[in-house]
């Protein structure tokens, strides 16, 4: 079988090429089925409980996806005619935002007050251009004392104000175009106002800009950094392989692997998202490794004097099994991502696993065909004494020192892993300098954080919100929330009740308290609701039969752990103070917090499972229990050391980083397998441990170094991304791949020498050598 295939590759390369190209075109055509989903909901399974809670809340009350426009005057406060005029204009114009259902600001706030038995309901700023100094003082007084406004829509020091636009984007598979539509409309509006009103800065925060940032920042990388990374890899390949033709063959295989992977993904119904958009990079990474190994082996053989086709045959013979093993183990690593709580990560894992196997297929078919056709030349130099040979000798010589030193370094750095903390702060996914991050920071500086949690409290009975006990409960809960260090602002119906109670008693401040009577509360609400304008009703706070209410809390910009903890404390507060009411907390931020936590747990379990599986597979493939067990250390070590170093340089593990372990496992195993396979081949040919180590260095050392350099430099490019999921992933991946090479060059050979010397000592005893029981053959 293997021979038949080898013959067809080597004897009829052109025929094979035609067949392969036909297959490639067919598979790649599936890419036409791919579409991009940029919204944050792709991170969640539709049955995911925090998402279900969130969507339930959105169906019961209205959706509250929003764009919040922050207006910051260069100097002074917002309480002057010019700024209030600007805010009033912005408020009115904001109604033109596509899908908008509500616009809230300090100017259209429905101010209520009493005059005798008259209850007056009016925009706080009715005619901004006609405001007198007295009016402005009144607006300031009301705004800074109204809990709905101060710290929410206007800074407590008056230094900035926000206009909040609520949108109802229709449910569909992909909201990306609608999100872009909303953003471009709001941008056009603020650009126009920035022209008309110099001296103001405008910022955009909220769920919709966050969604937009997710969609665009990820794609920006695709247009800038990824091409740069590819260019760099191509250049490095040409230089390090010292052959233009070899580089061209590799690049062709890389391109084909990517298009066929994405095409197959398209045929299978996958879509592009923030997660799957990384698949081409990952697949390319592993395809680079596969190609480099084959070409390096061929060049090695040609240097030893073999003719090109013979060298190719040798290279295939030597590498087929290791490439298959590394591809299979890498695919297993990726398939563990299927256990992820997050569907995009699962998709990413599945598609990458498919891609890795496609990379394998092409590197043992298309690549040999190309190598058979292209006139690649290598100068024969049988007595070649390159840097790898020198390195091999040095390692053998120093292995007694190298082993303890490298072990201590590994253990020391590995133990730093505890410095890491799982923390997802979605707003910090974007680097300073991006508009979204600058907006988040500006909002935090002037008014509040950007994350919110909505709390729905269900009384369980129709009209239950009018029950004085219920109102007292939400009032107590709001008070409790306001005392929490994580909370910046709370909007609650109980404040409205208090204000109405005061208004109904001639604006007597002593009546600024929750109504004591159920009917009274109900009648206040009826009165109030009848006097509100379109879009400023209470339907976002009350459900249709008034059995439930929604409180909104704005949080400081905190991490996922603190967010989840706040939610747990809130639940505990309810369990203690109002166990009779059901309460749920939900928001996009809370969902990210939860998925960051649960995803990491499942990732750790699946990584362990993958390692066990892979090591088992290696025992089988290397046909040595001994080597299979040894491989555990260089397979596990780099990730441990890498995350230890990560603990020092960052210490934050986010959703993007959780895929790094699975992604790098492939390359780590790749290095180990190639090294061990060559080592074992030499041992099986009767060489001793020292000679086998030297052989491994000279035959595969260069390939390992090339792949590592190429990938480390390539992934380092991603570290320049403004999107932290990408930059962290790039940096950590580069780090771990580099560490893997160090482990395989310095620790693994020293360790092999130590163990096999012990064995040698054991040979003197009657016990037979384990390696003798293995059926040699090439691995």
């Amino acid at each position, binding site marked *: 079988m293997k021979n038949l295939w080898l013959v067809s590759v080597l004897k009829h390369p052109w025929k094979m090429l035609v067949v392969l190209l036909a297959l490639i075109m067919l598979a790649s055509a599936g890419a036409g089925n791919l579409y991009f989903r940029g919204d944050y909901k792709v991170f969640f399974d539709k049955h995911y409980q925090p998402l279900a809670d969130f969507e339930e809340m959105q169906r019961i009350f*209205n959706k509250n996806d929003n764009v919040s426009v922050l207006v910051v005057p260069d100097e002074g406060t917002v309480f002057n005619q010019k700024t209030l005029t600007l805010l009033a204009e912005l408020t009115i114009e904001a109604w033109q935002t596509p899908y908008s259902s509500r616009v809230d600001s300090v100017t259209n706030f*429905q101010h209520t007050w009493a005059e005798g038995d008259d209850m007056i309901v009016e925009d706080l700023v009715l005619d901004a251009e006609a405001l007198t100094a007295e009016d402005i003082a009144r607006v300031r007084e009301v705004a800074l004392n109204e809990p709905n406004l101060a710290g929410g829509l206007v800074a407590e020091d008056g230094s900035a104000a926000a206009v909040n636009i609520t949108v109802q984007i229709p449910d569909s598979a992909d909201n990306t175009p609608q999100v872009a539509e909303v953003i471009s409309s709001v941008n056009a509006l603020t650009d126009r106002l920035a022209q008309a009103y110099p001296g103001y800065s405008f910022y955009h925060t909220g769920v919709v800009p966050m969604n937009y940032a997710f969609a665009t920042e990820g794609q920006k990388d695709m247009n800038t950094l990824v091409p740069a990374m590819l260019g760099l890899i191509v250049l490095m390949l040409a230089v390090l392989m010292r052959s233009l033709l070899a580089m061209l063959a590799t690049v062709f295989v890389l391109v084909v692997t990517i298009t066929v992977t994405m095409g197959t993904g398209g045929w299978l119904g996958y879509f592009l998202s923030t997660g799957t958009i990384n698949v081409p990079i990952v697949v390319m990474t592993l395809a680079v490794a596969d190609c480099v190994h084959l070409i390096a082996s061929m060049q090695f053989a040609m240097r030893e004097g073999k003719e090109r086709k013979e060298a190719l045959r040798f290279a295939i013979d030597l590498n087929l099994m290791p490439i298959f093993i590394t591809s299979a183990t890498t695919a297993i690593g990726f398939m563990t991502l299927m256990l992820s709580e997050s569907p995009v990560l699962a998709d990413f894992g599945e598609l990458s696993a498919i891609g890795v196997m496609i990379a394998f297929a092409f590197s043992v078919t298309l690549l040999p065909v190309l190598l058979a056709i292209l006139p690649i030349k290598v100068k024969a130099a049988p007595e070649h004494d390159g840097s790898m040979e020198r390195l091999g000798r040095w390692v053998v010589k120093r292995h007694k020192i190298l082993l303890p030193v490298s072990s201590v370094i590994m253990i020391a750095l590995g133990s730093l892993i505890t410095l890491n903390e799982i923390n997802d702060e979605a707003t910090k996914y974007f680097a300073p300098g991006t508009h979204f991050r600058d907006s988040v920071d500006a909002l935090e500086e002037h008014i509040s954080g950007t994350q919110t949690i909505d709390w729905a409290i269900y009384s369980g009975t129709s009209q239950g919100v009018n029950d004085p006990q219920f109102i007292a409960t939400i009032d107590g809960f709001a008070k409790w929330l306001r005392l929490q260090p994580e909370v910046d602002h709370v909007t609650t119906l109980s404040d409205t009740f208090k204000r109405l109670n005061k208004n109904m008693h001639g604006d007597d401040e002593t009546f600024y308290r929750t109504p004591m*009577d159920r009917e009274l509360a109900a009648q206040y609400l009826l009165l109030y609701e*009848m006097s509100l304008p379109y879009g400023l009703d209470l339907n976002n706070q009350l459900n249709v039969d008034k059995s439930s209410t929604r409180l909104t809390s704005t949080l400081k910009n905190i991490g996922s752990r603190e967010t989840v903890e706040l939610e747990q404390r809130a639940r505990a507060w309810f369990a203690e103070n109002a166990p009779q009411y059901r309460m749920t907390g939900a928001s996009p931020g809370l969902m990210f917090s939860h998925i960051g936590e649960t995803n990491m747990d499942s990732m750790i379990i699946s990584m362990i499972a993958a390692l066990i599986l892979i090591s088992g597979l290696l025992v089988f493939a290397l046909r040595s229990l001994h080597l299979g067990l040894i491989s555990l250390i260089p397979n596990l070590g780099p990730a441990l050391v890498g995350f230890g170093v990560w603990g020092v340089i960052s210490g934050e593990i986010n959703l993007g980083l959780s895929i790094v372990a699975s992604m790098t496992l492939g390359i780590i195993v790749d290095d180990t397998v190639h090294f061990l396979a060559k080592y074992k081949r030499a041992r099986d040919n009767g060489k001793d441990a020292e000679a086998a180590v030297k052989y491994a260095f000279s035959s595969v050392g260069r390939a390992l170094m090339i792949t590592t350099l190429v990938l480390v430099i390539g992934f380092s490019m991603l570290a320049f991304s403004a999107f932290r999921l990408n930059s962290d992933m790039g940096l950590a991946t580069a780090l771990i791949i580099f560490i893997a090479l160090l482990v395989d060059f310095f620790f693994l050979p020293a360790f092999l020498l130590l163990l096999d010397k012990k064995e040698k000592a054991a040979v003197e005893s009657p016990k037979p050598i384990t390696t003798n029981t293995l059926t040699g053959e090439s691995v």
Partner: protein
Amino acid sequence: MKSFLSLMLGLALVTPLTHVANADEAADRGLAIATDRKQRDAGWNNSESAVTMTLRNAQGEESVRKIRSKSLEVADDGDKGLTIFDEPRDVKGTAFLNFSHIGKPDDQWLYLPALKRVKRIASRNKSGPFMGSEFAYEDMSSFELDKYSFRYLGDETVAGHDCYKVEQTPLDKFSGYTRQVVWLDKDELRVHKIDFYDRKKSLLKTLTLTDHQLYKERYWRAHTATMVNHQTGKSTVLQTEDIRFDTGLTDDDFNQTTLQRAR
């Protein structure tokens, strides 16, 4: 609350046409149809009715409101209305008195039994939801020619009726709508459907009117009005249980004193 009935087909004396003559044929035709609609319903005098509102949200939750209303036709101005709330229980006995006006804010008073006081509501707003439903207060007030400009858009069939399709643009800047599109049948000028467009000119809601019944051999009243909000997925069905005409109501039945006594 102004007469609910008028929503279903308003009426009253035709106020002298103050519209500037519009050369546009579509505008003339639209106004002619609206004028005809108004005239056909003029002279109904007064009525009393009982209405059940059923609210639904996107989650499928339901809630019921029950109200009774008394309406008095007023010449040269908007109508007068007295609305008594029966359900939900917590607002039982609350009563709302409204004098509708054209071109200036309505006069509104609310009697709160829990407070035992009448409160006058001073608000220009008439576009907010009525009792949390999908009906805005303005959707339920009487149809008056001077509230809109009109434009005839064509003929269409709705629910088997050959209809005129007329666009009406609210003249009140406090209206929640940029325009409404009304379908009225050619036979009786009964309204069958209205599309409401919000401030950004997107379709917001659709009102469907069914179960039209004839009273006093002249006045058609739809007994079921279904309002669907396309943006939020919420809906409200307004079911008129009972309408009686000429119940002897006079101007004296619509003042703050009668408001307090209304049960």
